[in-house]
């Protein structure tokens, strides 16, 4: 199994506060990995470093053999935890920009999947419900045929039934050998799709393990394990 992502000794501070403290881990090809931790534990900081949104970190990142930069961005599809599109933009325009920016963007697939979910090309971003905005973000991210997908808190505003559907959509759209790193507080909704879980606490990794191993060893769910660690 080849490695998609390797982080070594990653640290980052905001002023005096250490947001990430000596974080090292790898993600293999084809793996779906959940990133969990309380607010302020460093999840978004870690993700922003991987996505190239924060530059002044210590330590090294290797994505398919390249440091974070133009080459890594060409193979990383990143969806931030906030809506990145302006309210007055039409969905068709956003798809158009993606098609121009990313060679691996499958515009036809994006249009088809959005249409299935009744999100239409001539809708304005500002008119979408919170749930639909998040679906739009997820589908745009998954329509790139990337090596590594990074979704930061992708479906907190989506109702439970639609969430199950969007999880299936993610599985369907993801290429076989690509990997997915997903940060969310909604552990119960995604634990059955995960290969591995990473727990972050005060900027450090306190656990990184295959999820089925966890269930096998302790007979407890990932949600139980999380409560045990952070309660």
């Amino acid at each position, binding site marked *: 199994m080849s490695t998609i992502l390797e982080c070594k000794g990653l640290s980052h501070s905001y002023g005096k506060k250490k947001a990430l403290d000596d974080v090292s881990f790898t993600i293999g090809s084809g793996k779906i990995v959940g990133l969990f931790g309380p607010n302020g534990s460093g999840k978004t900081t870690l993700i922003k470093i991987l996505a190239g949104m924060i530059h002044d970190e210590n330590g090294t990142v290797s994505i398919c053999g390249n440091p974070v930069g133009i080459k890594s961005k060409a193979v990383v599809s990143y969806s931030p935890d906030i809506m990145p599109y302006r309210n007055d933009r039409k969905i068709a325009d956003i798809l158009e920009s993606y098609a121009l920016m990313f060679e691996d963007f499958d515009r036809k697939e994006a249009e088809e999947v959005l249409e299935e979910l009744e999100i239409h090309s001539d809708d304005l971003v500002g008119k979408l419900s919170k749930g639909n905005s998040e679906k739009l973000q997820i589908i745009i991210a998954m329509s790139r045929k990337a090596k590594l997908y990074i979704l930061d808190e992708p479906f907190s505003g989506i109702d439970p039934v639609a969430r199950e559907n969007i999880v299936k959509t993610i599985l369907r759209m993801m290429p076989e050998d690509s990997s997915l790193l997903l940060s969310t507080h909604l552990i119960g909704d995604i634990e059955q*799709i*995960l290969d591995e879980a990473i727990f972050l606490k005060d900027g450090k990794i306190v656990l990184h393990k295959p999820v*089925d191993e966890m*269930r096998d060893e302790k*007979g407890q769910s990932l949600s139980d394990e999380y409560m045990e660690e952070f309660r």
Partner: protein
Amino acid sequence: MPWNFDSDKPIFIQLVERLESDIVSGKYAPGDKLPTVRDLAVEAAVNPNTMQKAYGELERLGLVYTQRTNGRFVTEDAGLIEKTRKELAKKTAQEFLSRMKEIGISREEAVKLLGGKA
């Protein structure tokens, strides 16, 4: 039947049990072609790697075989399917009895509840 999982038991094991049960119940008949790993993983909303592992286990058990270019099929070995059915029945009965024991029902009472002769 929808796919429901106990979150405290490996998904891999639950998938194997579910597929075994679908085979012995005839949902997938002997010689039937099985869905692809990806299609079934999406339907069950589980990780494709885990589904792949479950298919691998069924192959190891002989319940499923792969034809290199055509996909995966259910065994046509009726004896093996029958044997698996009996094993599943036995396991289910044991689970029932141990649950009964937990709530303080004796073996005899449990059998009576089933309408059998203790």
